[in-house]
């Protein structure tokens, strides 16, 4: 069984559109994340979400919004897509929540969603 799954795997859309990427984890983890990997392969954290506590990377435009219907899902909504949003987006989850002493950051990553904005 896939531990962390994302859909779709590929997404091609036009500028100005609104789109969503879905993420589900079946590991029973408390914390989920969204990362953006740019064309140079740099991986940057976008959001961390745990029990309704959202930690946002302040560099992320407010066109991006994570939505969590339940603990196993963290979807990424993107409004008014721009060319610069083209990238691979990774969802991840970890068992322990940030802030706990001795937390292990063993994160499990989804396969990624390649977003192309034309």
């Amino acid at each position, binding site marked *: 069984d896939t531990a962390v799954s994302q859909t779709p795997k590929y997404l091609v859309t036009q500028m100005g559109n609104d789109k969503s990427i879905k993420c589900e984890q079946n590991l029973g983890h408390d914390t989920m994340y969204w990362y953006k990997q740019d064309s140079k392969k740099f991986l*940057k954290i976008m959001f961390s979400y745990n029990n309704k506590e959202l930690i946002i*990377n302040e560099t992320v435009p407010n066109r991006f919004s994570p939505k969590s219907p339940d603990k196993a899902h963290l979807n990424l909504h993107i409004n008014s897509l721009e060319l610069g949003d083209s990238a691979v987006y990774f969802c991840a989850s970890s068992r322990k929540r940030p802030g706990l002493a001795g937390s292990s950051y063993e994160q499990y*990553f989804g396969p990624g969603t390649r977003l192309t904005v034309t």
Partner: protein
Amino acid sequence: SQELEQSPQSLIVQEGKNLTINCTSSKTLYGLYWYKQKYGEGLIFLMMLQKGGEEKSHEKITAKLDEKKQQSSLHITASQPSHAGIYLCGADEKAGNMLTFGGGTRLMVKP
């Protein structure tokens, strides 16, 4: 904010050769994590190091964290084509911080 630098950026080795990838931080780390990304796929967790001088091994891959907890190396012994991929180091300065990642090292292993 913390920065992680990886070297080399890319590496091509002959099958059977040993290789080392380095990850250097500008600050003392709480935890250092190594991941592998196969081309077009997600990241796979390899190892986590937290103590200065710590060393961990898994199959033919060994990771070390220096005493100052600012530099880590990933060593692959007798490389195989299956080792090919992008190796990423990630780190946090304290418990609870989100990880920062290095730029990655692209490894190719020639059969």
